């Protein structure tokens, strides 16, 4: 089992000279769970994209570690799974094709058993050969979980984890969250208090931010 850590040091992000947030620092290592909370526009999604290595902070740095060894953010993508409203899958491919193509690009292999397992977990196995363009927003959200968990990530980053999901979908997410936080790292960006309560620690972004344990 890998121990992964994220060390965010004084990170700030500006868009077109407008400051989204500034001077955020925290350190977290697995097993742990961390909620990023704050009002709309406080920068939760931006912070989660920075942690996923998809955006560069304007100031500060994020250091990633695996088993105590510092690694580049590019390598970190092998251990991170990300679910976000800003991350879409290909509408013109079927659910199965999406997972096959993305697996091949990521690791040159297709673990068919793992794909079946995940599509069954998110209850999409019976729709595996349907184009994603025909899926409802909730089904697309479920498929994003299958994509995020495909490579058994040590860090699961969830931005608005239950958006568009029905009650059954929320239960599936709770199950995934419980499993993830047992051994690995879970980070949830949300403004829903119930979702924030799934985590052991909370970081608030925005003007009135602070940290509570």
């Amino acid at each position, binding site marked *: 089992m890998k121990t992964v850590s994220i060390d965010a040091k004084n990170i700030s992000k500006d868009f077109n000279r407008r400051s989204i947030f500034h001077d955020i620092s925290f350190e977290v290592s697995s097993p742990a769970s961390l909620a990023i909370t704050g009002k709309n526009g406080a920068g939760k999604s931006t912070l989660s*994209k920075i942690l996923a290595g998809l955006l*560069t902070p304007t100031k500060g740095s994020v250091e990633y570690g695996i088993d105590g060894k510092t690694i580049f953010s590019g390598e970190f*993508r092998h251990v991170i799974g990300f679910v976000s409203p800003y*991350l879409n899958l290909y509408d013109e491919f079927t659910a199965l094709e999406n997972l096959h*193509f993305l697996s091949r690009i990521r690791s040159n292999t297709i673990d068919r058993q793992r794909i079946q397992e995940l599509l069954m977990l998110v209850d999409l196995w019976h729709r595996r050969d349907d184009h994603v363009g025909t899926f409802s927003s909730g089904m697309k959200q479920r498929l994003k979980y299958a994509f995020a968990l495909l490579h058994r990530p040590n860090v699961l980053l969830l931005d608005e984890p239950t958006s568009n999901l029905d009650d059954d979908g929320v239960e599936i997410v709770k199950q995934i969250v419980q499993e993830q936080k047992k051994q690995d790292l879970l980070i949830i960006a949300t403004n829903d208090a119930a979702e924030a309560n799934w985590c052991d620690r909370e970081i608030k972004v925005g003007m009135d931010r602070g940290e509570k344990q």
Partner: protein
Amino acid sequence: MKTIAAIVAVVSKDVRSELRTRYALNALLMFVLIAVATILFALRDDHLSSDVLAGMFWVVIFFTAMSGLSRIFVSEEERGTTFTLQLVATPSVVYWGKLFFNAGLTLLLTGAVAILYIVVFPAFVVQSPSIFIVTLLLGDLGFAASATILAAIIAKAHSKGTLYPVLSFPVLIPLLMTVMQSTAKALDGENISDAFGDFQILIAYLLIMAGGSYLLFDYVWKD
């Protein structure tokens, strides 16, 4: 080996996606047909010099390519799949994958325009096929190298449609001048050794654009 396999996977994803959505193919084919038909109606009976024919040939390719090649990154941006691709692939894998896809598309486009020109313009007779083929190959690869990095840049902008040809034209001027000159030599039936200078410029252009774009792509692709 892993990187090559990942690049092949990106190309195969894009080919499959293109065959399903026809994002670029339809735009390219329609533009080729309309442009060639318009030129045919206007100039069919005129006796044109090889310089003018070569110029018309590459004008059609330039504007057609401008209407389709940017789709490779614009479609990822519009569908919100850019982050997905960033999560699964390194920037270099994405760059080479997209470059090879665009090169294939440009070769297909140029082949279609060449066949149409040969069929519909009696004056468009390729007397030196070797110069013509090498020019098309090197010209297309250089074209694709420039088009790919510019597509990545404009995908993040608001006025993508206008910006692409405007940004591309100055970058492509050295390439266009050389391929037009070399194509005219092919139509005039000159010896292949007469076109070596043009080929050297095209190879240098390709290496500079592909190498420079590869180094720059990390910064363009991320944010």
